[in-house]
C-alpha cells in the first residue's frame, strides 16, 4: 500500500488506517446540517479567496470565493437543507485531477451537510490546487479543532488498496473521471449500506441565435464574446461542461453571416486573453481535428490561428460516436438548425450542459419540453457553463450527502 500524505490541517505522512480512524472519530460527532460552525468556515475561506492577491489572478478561485460568501451559503442552506435530515457520516470524494477547484466546492458541501470528508487529491500538483489547499488550511486554523479534524485531505497515487480501505469505511463514495476511471473505481467494494455516486464523461454544447447576434453592435458582440470565451477556453475546453459543439439557429444566410463575424472575434478574444496552446496541445488538437474530418460530415474546415479551428458540419452523422473523442484546446464543431427545438431529437444521454445565447424564453422552453429530447441536464446562459451547480448531472449533491427523512402524513 502506498504512503498517504495528509495535507490538512497539517502536512503529515499517514497510513490509510489512521486516515480512516480520524474520519471515524470526526463522524462520531455529527454536526447538524447547515451548522453555524461550518458556515463560519465557509465565510472565512471565502474572505481569504476574495482577499488574497494571489488568488485574485485565478478566476476559478474567485468563483469559488464568491460561491462561499455568507449570503450565498445561507441561501443554499435554506434551499437545500431546510427539510429535516441527518449527516451521512463519512463522505469519500475522488475529484477529477484537473478541475483543480472542484474539491473546494464538494468538500464544503460535505461539511455543510454535517459529515466528515475524505478527499483523494490526484498525485499531480498544480499551482491552483496548491494555493487553494493553503488557503483552506488558513481558514481551518481560524476555526475549532473539531471542525479542522473533519476535513481530511489526502494525496496518494493510484493505489486500489488505499482506495479500497477508504471505501470500506465510508457511507458515501463520490467519483469524478473518465468512464474508464469511474468503472474501475466502482468495482471496488463498499459497505452494503453505502452510496456510490459517479460522474463520468459528458459532452456539452452551445446554442446561438444568429439573428440576435447580427442585431448587436460591434462593442456588444465583443462583450458577449468575453463570456463565451470563458465557457470554451477555461480548462482548455476539456471540462465536461465546456461547449464543444456550436448550434447556430437561424436561416442559412443569417447563420452564415453571424458565424463569419463570430469566429474571428472569438479567435482574437482568445489571443488577447493570452490563450495559447503549447506544442503538445496543438499536436493533440490537430490529431483530433483529423479524426473529425475522417468521421464526420464536414462541409468546411477553417483555422483561425492556433486558438481556434472550426469544422462546419452538414449534419449530425457520426457525432454520437465522435463525442467520445477527448478533443479540445479550441476546436468547435458547428451545425445549423432552423429552430432550437429541432436540436432536441439529436441529443442523447451523454449531453450535459447547453449554454444558450440570444433566445427568447419560449424558444428555450420548446427545446426543454420537446418530447424527443434525450440529453442535457443543464441549460445555462452563455458565460455560465462552468459555474458550479449543487445539482450536478441531475444529482442533488446536498441530498446525496445527507439522509433526508421521508415523511408521510
Amino acid at each position, binding site marked *: 500500500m502506498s504512503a498517504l500524505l495528509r495535507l490538512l490541517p497539517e502536512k503529515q505522512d499517514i497510513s490509510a488506517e489512521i486516515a480512516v480512524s480520524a474520519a471515524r472519530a470526526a463522524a462520531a460527532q455529527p454536526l447538524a446540517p447547515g451548522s453555524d460552525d461550518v458556515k463560519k468556515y465557509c465565510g472565512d475561506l471565502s474572505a481569504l479567496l476574495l482577499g488574497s492577491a494571489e488568488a485574485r489572478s485565478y478566476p476559478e478561485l474567485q468563483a469559488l470565493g464568491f460561491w462561499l460568501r455568507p449570503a450565498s451559503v445561507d441561501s443554499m442552506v435554506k434551499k437545500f437543507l431546510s427539510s429535516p435530515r441527518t449527516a451521512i457520516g463519512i463522505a469519500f470524494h475522488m475529484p477529477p*485531477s484537473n478541475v483543480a477547484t472542484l474539491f473546494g466546492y464538494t468538500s464544503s458541501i460535505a461539511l455543510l451537510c454535517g459529515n466528515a470528508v475524505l478527499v483523494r487529491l490526484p498525485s499531480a500538483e498544480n499551482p491552483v490546487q496548491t494555493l487553494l489547499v493553503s488557503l483552506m488550511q488558513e481558514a481551518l486554523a481560524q476555526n475549532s479543532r473539531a471542525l479542522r479534524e473533519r476535513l481530511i485531505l489526502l494525496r496518494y497515487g493510484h493505489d486500489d488498496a488505499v482506495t479500497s480501505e477508504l471505501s470500506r469505511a465510508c457511507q458515501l463514495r463520490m467519483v469524478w473521471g473518465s468512464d474508464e476511471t469511474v468503472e474501475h473505481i466502482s468495482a471496488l467494494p463498499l459497505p452494503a449500506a453505502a452510496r456510490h455516486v459517479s460522474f463520468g464523461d459528458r459532452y456539452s454544447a452551445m446554442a446561438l441565435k444568429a439573428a440576435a447576434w447580427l442585431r448587436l453592435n460591434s462593442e456588444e458582440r465583443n462583450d458577449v464574446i468575453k463570456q463565451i470565451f470563458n465557457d470554451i477556453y477555461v480548462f482548455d475546453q*476539456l471540462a465536461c461542461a465546456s461547449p464543444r459543439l456550436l448550434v447556430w439557429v437561424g436561416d442559412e444566410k443569417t447563420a452564415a453571416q453571424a458565424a463569419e463575424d463570430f469566429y474571428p472575434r472569438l479567435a482574437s478574444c482568445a489571443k488577447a486573453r493570452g490563450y495559447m496552446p*503549447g506544442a503538445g496541445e496543438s*499536436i493533440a488538437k490537430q490529431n483530433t481535428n483529423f479524426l473529425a474530418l*475522417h468521421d464526420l460530415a464536414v462541409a468546411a474546415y477553417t483555422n483561425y490561428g492556433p486558438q481556434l479551428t472550426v469544422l462546419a458540419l452538414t449534419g449530425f452523422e457520426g457525432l454520437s460516436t465522435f463525442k467520445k473523442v*477527448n478533443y479540445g484546446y479550441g476546436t468547435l464543431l458547428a451545425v445549423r438548425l432552423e429552430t432550437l427545438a429541432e436540436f432536441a431529437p439529436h441529443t442523447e444521454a451523454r449531453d450535459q450542459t447547453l449554454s444558450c445565447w440570444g433566445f427568447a424564453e419560449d424558444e428555450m422552453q420548446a427545446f426543454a419540453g420537446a418530447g424527443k429530447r434525450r440529453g442535457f441536464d443543464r441549460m445555462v446562459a452563455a458565460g455560465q457553463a462552468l459555474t458550479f451547480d449543487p445539482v450536478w448531472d441531475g444529482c442533488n449533491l446536498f441530498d446525496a450527502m445527507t439522509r433526508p427523512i421521508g415523511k408521510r402524513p
Partner: protein
Amino acid sequence: MTALDDLLTAPPFSLPQKEKEHALLPLLKELTEHHRNTCAPYRRMIDLAFPQVAEASTLAQLPYLPISLFKFRRLRSIAESDIRVTVTSSGTTGTEKSRIELDAATAKLSSRALNLIINSVTGARRLPMLIVDCEASIKGGDGMGARAAAILGLMPFGRDHCFALRDNLGVDEDKIAAFLKRHEGQDILIYGFTFLVWQHFITACEKNSYDFSRGTLLHSGGWKKLAESAVDNNAFKARLKKAAGIGCVMNFYGMAELPGTIFLENENGLLYPPHFADVIIRDPITFQPLPHGQPGLVQILTSLPRSYPGHSLLTEDMGVIEATDSDGRYGHGLRIIGRAPRAELRGCSDVIAREAA
C-alpha cells in the same frame, strides 16, 4: 524506367537537394491523386484541410496526415483481398498501435528500397549476421511489430543468423561465443534495437571482451527509452568501440508506418533520407514549414506507399535539418531531438485514466 526507378537505382545520397525536390514533386503529387481516387476518407480529409493541393509547386505545399491517424482509423487504398502484409507499431505501454497494410507491389517496393540503402553499408555481400534480439520477437501474433518488421526486413542482408538474446532478453553468451568462433576474421553484420543494444548487448561485450572489430552495427528504434539514462549517440558509439572494438556503428531512423523509408546516419550523426524521400520541419503550433536550423516536428515524404496513404506523414518526433548538400552527402541532414511534448490534459475527462496508464 519510371521516375521512381531512377531514384531507386542511383547510388544513395548522390542527388543534390534541388534535383531531388524536382524529381519528387510530380511523384508525390501523383501519389496524392492516386490515394484521393482510391481511399475515400483520405479524399474527404485532404480536400477539406488542404484545399489548394492541386496547385502545389513545392513539397511543403503537399498535404500531409498526422501519423497518429493510423492508430485510430484504418486507411488503405487497396481492396481487402489484396492485403499481403500488415505492419503494426510496437506501441508504448497504454497507447494504441498503428496499423498499415501493404499489397504485393508496395511490399516489393519497400524491400527494394531497403536493399539499396543497406547494400551501401554492407557492400552487397551477405555477411554473417548477429541479431541483438530474441527469436520469439519475429514470431508475433496479430500483425507484425516494428521490431519484427525491422529484423525480417534486414535478415536477407545477412547469413548464418544468430539471435543473441534469449526469450527473456537475457544474453545468450554461449551462442555469441560460438558465432564469433565460426566467423573469426570475417566481416560481420550486427543489428538490434537501440535500447536492446544498450541495455543487454554492451554489458555482455564488456563482461566477455568480445572482439567485434570486424563488425558493422546497425541500430534503430530510437532513443526514447534511453533518454532517461541520458545516453547520447557519441557515448553510445564510444562505449561500443571500447567494449567490443566496433568501429562502424550506424543509426537509422524510420518508423513502422513507413517500411523501406529509412534515414541512414553519417559520421556526424546526421540522418539522411533516401532519394525517394525527403523531410520537412514544421512548427508544432502553427504547422508552418520552418527554415533549416530551426527545430520542429518532422514530416516525412516518401514515394513508396501506394497501398495506403502514407506518402506524406507528420510524425510526433522533433528534429532539425542541420545540413543540406554538405557534410559528405547530398540531401537534407536531419538530427532527431526526441519526442514532441505530450498535451497536459486538463478537464474532467480521461485524466485519471491517463495517469493510471
